[in-house]
């Protein structure tokens, strides 16, 4: 994901909200380090321009969790996602495959359908997916929830013709 963010024109895509799963403690620090490197210090007044916020979201299901309790936790994740989407009202959503993005994309899509908001959803499938899509990717593709769906290997683009292949990010 950071490959994409570093390449984006920051003044076009601002402010930036980074969302990671509650139990993920590696992703947000990476984003924080990058955003810190962007902070400007202007003139004598040292105005620090910060354009990023970092949040964590409940996961629908942890690895190994029983499917019965997963019903309740998925519901909680959906409610949390809906709350975040309503609060942030993003115009653009970038997501790259963890299951955490599904409740967020579904909430944004629902608002779109109800005419209550408009987010362009861009999905970039993981580079580790060569022949098969991830479950998140499959859901977003089949349900046509993403405005643009990127894969990083040509075989996947052939298998899923509505996907776009524009090379690998790494």
């Amino acid at each position, binding site marked *: 994901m950071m*490959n*994409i963010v570093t390449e984006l024109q920051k003044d076009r895509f601002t402010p930036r909200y980074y969302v990671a799963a509650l139990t993920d403690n590696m992703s947000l620090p990476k984003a924080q380090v990058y955003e810190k490197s962007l902070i400007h210090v202007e003139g004598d007044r040292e105005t620090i321009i910060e354009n990023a916020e970092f949040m964590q979201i409940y996961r629908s299901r942890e690895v190994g969790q029983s499917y019965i309790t997963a019903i309740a936790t998925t519901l909680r994740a959906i409610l949390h996602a809906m709350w975040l989407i309503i609060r942030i009202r993003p115009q*653009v959503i970038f997501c790259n495959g963890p299951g955490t993005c599904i409740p967020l994309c579904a909430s944004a899509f629902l608002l779109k359908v109800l005419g209550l908001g408009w987010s*362009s959803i861009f999905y970039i499938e993981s580079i*580790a997916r*060569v022949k098969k899509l991830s479950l998140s990717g499959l859901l977003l593709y089949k349900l046509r929830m993403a405005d643009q769906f990127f894969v990083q290997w040509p075989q996947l683009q052939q298998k899923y013709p509505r996907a776009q292949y*524009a*090379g690998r*990010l*790494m």
Partner: protein
Amino acid sequence: MGDRERRVVFVTVGTTCFDALVKVVDSEELKQALLQKGYTDLLIQMGRGTYKPSKLSTLQASGNSSLQVEHFTFSPSIADNIREASLVISHAGSGSIFETLRLGKPLIVVVNEDLMDNHQSELAEELAERNHLFCAHPQTLRENVEAMDLNALQPYVPGEAKPVVALINRFLGFPVD
């Protein structure tokens, strides 16, 4: 003794537990195979693994040289370890794979058969088919080391996000630089 030229083999399992790989790398047969290929040192990053490799050196049959073995669990960055290595043996995580390829080092990826959803092997197999690395299983690692021809490897040209970002900008109606 004068400075001998070190040829380090760096083994990494990332944040995973991959005892099967560490065990194989710790075996006499594999250490012999590495010695035969001219490697002098073995550095094992064992992650969350429970099997502890021995730090004893292995003597070659002629008794002339031995493989120096070191191991550690984690480090904040393995980039330096990769840079100093002449060969990297890694688990199939995409991070380790691309970090090694980016640094231009010969790489053997070992697929962990104990993992439930082994989609990771797709990436290793695809890159092996394109001759960017060698792909092995713990049981076949020794044969792979003995048979590998480093000259057959093709350098991997890293990708970039510009083309994807250009398409995104175009979709949103921004001028594409």
